[in-house]
């Protein structure tokens, strides 16, 4: 029973905060609601016994992605009047996209079939009593599918480097600290070492 109560609490808050994300007038509140939604999703993962996924959810989405969202959104100077004008103009496109998505969901739901027998799967989920899910995930990612995992990591790396090279501009007038020059200085020329006896201080 207690599990059911927690499940409904997490689910209700999750759906409620998801609705808050899209209905809130203040974008910062939207991001905060999004964080709450992530958090409750992590709670649901814990209830499923997937504690590793839950923690990764909090670390990656709440701890990193949402921080950057919040960072950007907080610095925006939002003109609500302009925002509303855009709403009316783009409402038609929005409705079309939403309609297509809804149609897809309805289609999928109608065609959804559950086979009665457990199908033969390539990687059956290991028994949770024997292998905890951190180990199970590790086996899948780093042992069985290590090349695919590495390749997806490489793709992300390339994407990141691409984004940096596209946006990075070197300003000639930028006076950055040249650490090598500073480190190469002779300490005798720039430092005077005072030997102070304990308790006497420097005047």
């Amino acid at each position, binding site marked *: 029973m207690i599990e059911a109560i927690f499940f409904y609490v997490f689910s209700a808050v999750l759906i409620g905060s998801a609705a808050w994300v899209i209905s809130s007038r203040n974008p*910062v509140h939207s991001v905060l609601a999004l964080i709450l939604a992530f958090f409750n999703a992590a709670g649901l993962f814990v209830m499923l016994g997937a504690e*590793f996924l839950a*923690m990764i959810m909090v670390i990656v989405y709440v*701890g990193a992605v949402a*921080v950057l969202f919040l*960072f950007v959104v907080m610095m925006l100077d939002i003109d609500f009047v302009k925002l509303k004008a855009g709403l009316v103009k783009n409402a038609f496109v929005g409705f079309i996209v939403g309609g297509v998505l809804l149609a897809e969901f309805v289609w999928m739901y109608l065609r959804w079939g559950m086979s009665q027998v457990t199908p033969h799967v390539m990687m059956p989920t290991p028994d949770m009593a024997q292998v*905890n899910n*951190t180990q199970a995930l590790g086996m899948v990612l780093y042992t069985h599918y290590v090349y695919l995992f590495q390749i997806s990591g490489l793709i992300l790396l390339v994407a990141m480097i691409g984004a940096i090279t596209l946006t990075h501009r070197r300003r000639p007038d930028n006076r950055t*600290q040249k650490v090598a020059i500073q480190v190469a200085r002779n300490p005798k020329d720039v430092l005077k070492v005072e030997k102070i006896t304990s308790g006497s201080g420097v005047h």
Partner: protein
Amino acid sequence: MANSVTEQIQGLWNSDFSVAYVQPTAFAGLHVLEFVVPLIIAVAYLTYAERKVLAAMQMRQGPNVVGPFGLLQPLADGLKLLAKETIIPSGANRGVFLFAPMLTFLLSLVAWAVIPVNAGWVVSNINVGVLYLFAISSLGVYGILMAGWASNSRYAFLGGLRSAAQMVSYEVSMGFVLVSVLLTTGSLNLTAIVDAQHPFWVSLMLFPMFIVFVISALAETNRAPFDLPEGESELVGGYNVEYSSMTFALFFLGEYSNMILMSGMTSVLFLGAWLPPFGISALAVVPGFIWFALKVCFVLFVFIWTRATLPRFRYDQLMRLGWKVFLPFTLVWLVFMAAVLLYNHALPGMQGG
């Protein structure tokens, strides 16, 4: 009459519902209090210790008026903060403004749920303890960001932004340090990490990671020399400039209990928590939690010592240290450690392989 009332209460207490739900909740609550009350006292006396140690290093007296040796000073400070008026700026976003300090304080407390203070003395001995700690410490940035934004003040906002960038930057290298510890122990459970016995050469390899961890911990807790989010000289008081009374006190408590938490993490991950130092079995007569407390105090002393010694970093230097020094170093060192462990067949799970 009185007898029947106590019997009724006993009956209620022993009823099915109570045994199933009320009793576990009550015991868990007591268990939590066992951790929270000493923690709050420790926070109070950490502020006192900091002032005394700083005073000694700067050849001053420090607090010495309230009570013997000024020992009641933290209580007096607490009372003063309680008695003051809570001022909320008119332009502030009230809800977020009030929620931010609560969140900061709450997060600094909930992280203690997984810290083992002695063998088996832990509120919740979960399998993914390290990840839990990492997750909670990465949430700490929200309190400060929200405070900076909700205050509707330039100074507070700049403090909040600085803090966010700083904490996100140092989290990366901290993550690599955690991975290196996991590499040598093969478990995410904190008790298992403490119990893992390393040969000397493994500890030697972990030592640079320990240094990086302590420095990153300074940056994560916004302590000197990385206290730019507060930066009195440029930002007045940084993110908490608009806060007063209890809302300020919660930030203050949160900061110090985060310091204790980071020290606790350091002692669990690197210093062997409740185990006697250097594996000397004769020292095991001292109870484990005392060793834990001593190790935490040592790391806290290092925190305060650093504050008394080093000037504040400039912001670009701070970012350079995080991204251009710590990140490449921890990354290379992690690969190096993995290679050495693999070569010596010392990776967990391949013993005797």
